[in-house]
């Protein structure tokens, strides 16, 4: 067994509800950033909590670098650190006290912990906030303190659940820069519902929907799943066009999204220009891949959407 993160038929049920995770199997190398992408309730947090040894699965197995997540728990816990989705800083502590206490919990001696705090604070530029009570810190700094807290450990595998949710774009960009730097030395498994985040950071991307793994691969590999290289979004529907190659989806707001080949995109573009329609055309992005993959199973399940597809082609 090499440096791999492997899941075999992982399933998690909470009571009699539909499974939060259903038969998830995959194997990836533990290097760089692995982003788990999905809508709210897709199963991202459940999967990450199982892998981080916080939650027992209903069935299936998982291993990290050859260590069984459910049998070699002690060994794994020495090598991982977790930043939970809803983690909040203890308000009466300062960043220094927060990091120091967590290092003590990790089992470091007092002297070791104190020296590691210095390095960690400097690394993420938190020096000027080190003695400010956590309750007085801004949301972005609080997130950085949490990130610094898990980075201060010797853990080389980090599980980070929605690290940038609720942060403004500038702070988010800062954190992305930190994560990009970190991935050189750590394996980071992060969950996000920001497609841009996954696109910018991830070396591998897994897309979850309703507890199932819809797709897994690099961005290029995921692009090939969509099969079409171009996406056209027509802002006003009802146009009399026909996609010779590709697929079209009518959105709830009346706009139409078409996935097609470069050649057909050229032809459609000319037609739309002639008809003076408002539209945009661009190479398929992770947004498109995500909508394509996530919408597909939903549409397969509903007659209404099938009817809409027929209407679209009749137009």
């Amino acid at each position, binding site marked *: 067994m090499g440096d791999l993160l492997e899941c075999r038929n992982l399933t998690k049920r909470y009571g009699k509800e539909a499974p939060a995770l259903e038969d998830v199997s995959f194997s990836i190398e533990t290097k760089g950033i692995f982003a788990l992408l999905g809508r709210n309730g897709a199963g991202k947090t459940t999967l990450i909590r199982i892998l981080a040894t916080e939650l027992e699965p209903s069935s299936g197995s998982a291993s990290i670098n050859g260590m069984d997540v459910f049998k070699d728990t002690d060994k794994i816990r*020495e090598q*991982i650190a*977790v930043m*939970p989705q809803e983690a909040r800083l*203890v308000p009466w*502590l300062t960043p220094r*006290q927060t990091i120091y206490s967590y290092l003590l*919990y990790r*089992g*470091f001696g007092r002297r070791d912990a104190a020296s590691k705090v210095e390095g960690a604070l400097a690394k993420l530029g938190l020096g000027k906030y080190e003695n400010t009570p956590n309750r007085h810190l801004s949301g972005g700094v609080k997130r950085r303190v949490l990130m610094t807290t898990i980075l201060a450990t010797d853990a080389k595998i980090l599980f980070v659940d929605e690290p940038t949710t609720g942060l403004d774009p500038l702070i988010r960009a800062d954190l992305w820069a930190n994560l990009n730097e970190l991935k050189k030395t750590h394996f980071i498994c992060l969950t996000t519902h920001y497609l841009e985040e996954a696109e910018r950071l991830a070396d591998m991307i897994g897309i979850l929907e309703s507890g199932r793994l819809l797709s897994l691969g690099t961005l290029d590999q995921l692009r090939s799943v969509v099969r079409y290289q171009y996406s056209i979004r027509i802002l006003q529907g009802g146009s009399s066009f026909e996609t010779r190659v590709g697929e079209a989806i009518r959105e709830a707001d009346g706009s139409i999204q078409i996935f097609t080949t470069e050649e057909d995109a050229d032809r459609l573009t000319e037609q739309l220009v002639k008809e003076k329609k408002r539209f945009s055309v661009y190479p398929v992005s992770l947004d498109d891949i995500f909508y394509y993959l996530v919408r597909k199973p939903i549409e397969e399940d509903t007659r209404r959407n099938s009817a809409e597809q027929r209407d679209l082609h009749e137009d």
Partner: protein
Amino acid sequence: MKISRLSQVYASILINAVYEMRNYPITLASNIIAPFSVLVLILLVSHGVLLGISIEGALITAMISGGVNLQIDLSHMKNDFKLQDMLVSSPTKPFTYMLGMAMSALTNALPALTVLTILAFMFIHAGPTGTLTILGVFALIFAFSVALGFMLSTFGTDIQQNRAFVSILTVILATIAPIYYPITYIPLPIRYVAYLSPATYAAEIAQHAIGDLPLSASNLAIDWIVLVTVSCVLFFVVTKKSHWRDP
């Protein structure tokens, strides 16, 4: 890396007691004065007659509150800060965490215990055996309340629920139980209700130890047996019911 379990215990004491009292001095003040409210009341009503017993009662209250309030701290750490999630996925062991949190409860009670111990030395004359007995009772009642705190924290899903538990427990452990006065002050039919509270047995032993409550050897033995049994049962339930990794 060699993992220091002592560091892990120390971490809980720092977060949940030392840093809290240092950064929020109001909690230190609150920790000191909390056990005195009933003590002062009893002293005034009894014109000082129940001074020894009420100091002892305040000591028992401090031990009980420390353990019972622990469930609020545990709920805070688990549900609000997600600290427990971070610790589950770390080399921290559940027992070390429990021990650390229990020690933090004791540390929080320490300011009050110090003041009350000084008062006890001044006004209670227990002798070596009596002192040892009282210390034993305090240790047992603290262990009992800590176990209770842990057990309730596994049932409570948010802080509001846990606060409700504390209110109910305060009535059961500190109001129904005659810890600030002898049980003989309670009219007989109602006295039996007091025996529903484990704190009553602790109070009886402690009051007997300072010579304020005559007890037969068999009654004394029953008090010890009940106290030890209840504490053991609670610890057993805690170890069975609580879970470190979510099921």
